[in-house]
């Protein structure tokens, strides 16, 4: 039971940290609860579907389906995070000036929320499908039974959710003005870490055959499958043995998002006057 609790906790933690950051990043945005709930529910449904077709997915593309699937969903999340940050750069000033004014920006804000809902959905999907496979495996074997699955599963989920709530509560202590800057950075590093992980899946699947040399090994200091290492892996993309390709992807995404947000900030939305004008 303890083993299932720990495994479910680790998977829920990965998805939960992302939910915590997204919740903090969308502090005060109207309709965020609905979109985040969409993301979580969609992710849970998706993870059951992925788990059910796991063998089918795995055998696609000369047995590299699992790697390509993982890389694809991660890269979709990276694109959504980049797009959200660009949107925030365009609208952030209004949001910071008057949280209530955000209500007027709901129309365009929903696009950005939808992007973040996709990020959450993808995170829940990836980690959730592992939980489903693991728990159904225990159910299928003689080693546990429904009580083990329920206790381990629910306990792990509760613990994972608790840590995510703590992260969220910690983040929203930051004054609003700095909160946006902080969460924008967190989302950027989150995206960079996801890109580095995606690159690793591409290398594992044999799609990417260059830059495989490991640059350094900090596993003696902090292993990335330790609990702290895993949390840092989600938050800032920490990995104890990064390859050249992973570092290039990481730096490339950070620089790419910075340039994109700078460009977006200099190009205010064309419907700005409509958004900024009093509604009634």
């Amino acid at each position: 039971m303890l083993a299932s609790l720990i495994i479910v906790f680790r998977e829920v933690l990965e998805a939960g940290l992302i939910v915590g950051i997204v919740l903090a990043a969308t502090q005060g945005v109207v309709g965020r609860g609905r979109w985040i709930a969409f993301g979580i529910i969609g992710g849970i449904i998706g993870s059951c579907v992925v788990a059910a077709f796991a063998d089918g997915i795995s055998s696609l593309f000369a047995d590299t389906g699992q790697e390509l699937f993982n890389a694809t969903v991660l890269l979709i999340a990276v694109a959504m995070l980049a797009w959200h940050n660009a949107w925030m750069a365009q609208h952030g000033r209004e949001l910071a000036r008057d949280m209530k004014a955000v209500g007027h920006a709901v129309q365009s804000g929903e696009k950005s929320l939808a992007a973040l809902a996709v990020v959450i959905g993808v995170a829940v999907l990836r980690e959730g499908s592992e939980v489903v496979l693991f728990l159904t495996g225990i159910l299928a074997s003689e080693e546990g039974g429904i009580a083990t699955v329920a206790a381990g599963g629910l306990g792990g989920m509760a613990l994972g959710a608790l840590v995510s709530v703590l992260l969220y509560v910690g983040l929203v202590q930051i004054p609003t003005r700095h909160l946006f800057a902080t969460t924008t950075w967190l989302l950027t590093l989150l995206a960079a870490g996801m890109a580095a992980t995606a690159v690793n899946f591409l290398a594992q699947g044999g799609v990417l055959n260059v830059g495989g040399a490991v640059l350094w090994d900090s596993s003696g200091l902090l292993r990335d499958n330790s609990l702290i290492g895993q949390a840092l892996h989600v938050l800032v993309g920490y990995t104890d043995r990064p390859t050249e390709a992973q570092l290039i992807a990481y730096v490339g995404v950070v620089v790419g998002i910075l340039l994109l947000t700078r460009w977006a900030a200099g190009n205010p939305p064309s419907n700005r006057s409509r958004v900024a004008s009093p509604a009634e």
Partner: protein
Amino acid sequence: MRRVSLLSAACAIALSGAAFLQAAPVRADDVITIVIKDHKFEPAEVKVPANKRVTLLVDNQDATSEEFESGEMKVEKIVGGRKQIKVMVGPLKPGRYPFFGEFHEATAQGAVIAE
């Protein structure tokens, strides 16, 4: 008559093409099988040639799924209950590369030895 010669020409081209493909070096991936049984790897240690890309065939004979993972080889891949997966690793420098089954980490431990 003309059609026949065209047809035979096409056949000849196709045949020579096939011969060419056959002559081209086939991807020389060595496949090494690792069986999972009772949440243990059999064999627990496998030897692979160093500096060469190899394919591990992970054959899970348990009813439960497992995640084949290794920080040293930078792989993580799920293998369903009573299913098989192929994992490409390397090229590895000579050395010992531990791997484990994330879902049953207490017993599922092994290592690839590149030499």
